[in-house]
């Protein structure tokens, strides 16, 4: 399993009700079903991903996140997960709000646009960053809402979302001394576990 997914799997309680937004090939849900007795659902739009999920016995619902989550009931899930998808949806702020409406908590992961390599590309070369964790060129990237860890935390403060846990990792999904000390400069991917305001 992808290392980021095993980090997330550790954050999810057995028998929790889980919704995975942009579930891809369904690896996380398949793992949770087998090992944690989790009754989860995944949303995705890619036809190949849908078939792969079906072959794994994952509850996959073909649904475009940009069409919203209004059909899901309040408090329907214990945990709503979205891995590296926040930066490619049209209304990330609305989606976050919805995630915390239908789920008691959520886990969001996304790439850091303020990583020093990105800063180098933009600041010194004057070019849009093309780096290991953001490999696409500006014209063909699905990442239309890139942000930094600072930006994200500012949004959470404004909406009074509770940051319950935060992991910041390097490009190999391991925690590093530097990424812990100065996450917004040295972290490439962040995992945020969020709750509603108390």
């Amino acid at each position: 399993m992808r290392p980021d997914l095993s980090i997330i799997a550790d954050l999810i309680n057995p028998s929790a009700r889980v919704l995975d937004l942009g579930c891809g090939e369904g690896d996380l849900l398949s793992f949770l079903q087998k090992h944690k007795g989790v009754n989860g659902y995944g949303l995705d739009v890619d036809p190949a991903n849908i078939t792969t999920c079906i072959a794994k016995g994952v509850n996959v619902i073909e649904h475009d996140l940009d069409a919203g989550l209004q059909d899901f009931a309040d408090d329907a899930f214990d945990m709503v997960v979205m891995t590296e998808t926040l930066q490619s949806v049209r209304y990330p702020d609305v989606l976050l709000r919805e995630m915390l409406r239908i789920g008691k908590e959520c886990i969001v992961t996304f790439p850091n646009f303020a990583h020093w390599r990105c800063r180098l590309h933009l600041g010194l070369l004057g070019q849009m960053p093309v780096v290991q964790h953001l490999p696409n060129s500006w014209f063909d990237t699905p990442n239309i809402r890139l942000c930094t860890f600072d930006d994200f935390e500012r949004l959470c403060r404004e909406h009074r979302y509770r940051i319950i846990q935060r992991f910041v990792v390097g490009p190999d999904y391991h925690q590093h001394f530097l990424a812990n000390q100065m996450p917004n400069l040295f972290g490439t991917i962040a995992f945020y576990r969020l709750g509603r305001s108390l």
Partner: protein
Amino acid sequence: MKDRAFEGNDLGVITPRTFCHESAFLLRSGANLPGFELVYETYGKLNSQHSNAVLICHALSGHHHAAGFHSKDDDKPGWWNNCIGPGKAIDTTRFFVVTLNNLGGCHGSTGPCSARPEGMGNWGPDFPTVTVEDWVRSQALLADHLGIRQFAAVIGGSLGGMQAMQWSIDFPERVCAAIMIASAAKLTAQNIAFNEIARHAITSDPHFAAGRYRATGENPDVGLALARMIGHVTYLSASGMGQRFGRQLKSGDLALGQDVEFQVQSYLRYQGQTFSRQFDANTYILMTRALDLFDPAAAYGDDLVEALSGAKAKFLVISFSSDWRFSTERSGEIVHALIRAKKNVVSSVIESEHGHDSFLLPLPRYLAVLGTYLRQLYETLDEHAP
């Protein structure tokens, strides 16, 4: 007589059989049938645990002949031959497939064309109202007869999908997977309206004779053809029709405006005429009423979540992007009710230009979704054993 070379993945010649239920059968309407017959076909082999049976429920104008051929010189295979056969999405090397003509049908099962039990001609318009629940109960009796305690899957498109849903509600222990394709939890007003126009077309035909056309020997062909033409247009999409027919002429001269006949006119007329020779008007009225009446949530305070809460099956819900008669939104309602009811559900929206008819067509992605789901189901059949 031409000798057909069957393709490798087609079933060969299939012989329909008849199941006789010889005791009284109480319908939801309160009417009592003194017994009935159902014509059915089976493909593949029932395994020793009797766990690999799949029931195919037909739609408005369907019947028991879903796949294979009735004779070596048969022009056309069954109506779902695209999906059913060795190696196909509904793989007859794995599953034992059961298909039938529903009660009230006109292809051999007891219906308006059958003789009345008192020996006074046939039922005609007096055949009692039949509902989806009645069909499902009669199908359960057929399953008993075939020694099938639990279906691996109950599968249907459109009205057939409604039967699959009803199965999961009425016989939760007897369905592993309910597969609803281009279906809905109930008809919309617009959908009922189209059915009413079709019925009106039939009943307005002077040959309909209040449903007693068998006595006069004149069939309401014009009304039945018109009903089919209306239905057919609603089963296609505007862009699909545009692509297929455009403004192509069959005959005449557009510049002169004389004797102009568009291809689409000729096609519709042919569809209507063919249908009117093959289908019974009273059955058409009966089947469209069953469609209109279907609403499993009604018995649960109009709460579909509540209606589905007792189901034990897992569900596959498939819809098609250009289907406006049973739109993707209607399938979405089923999916979200199932999620709220905490059921296992997979749903897919297939991109297609062919409207409601898509469910009968060999669209690669549709077949991949259905086939993959059934393959996964087959591999886990032991876990579902009763």
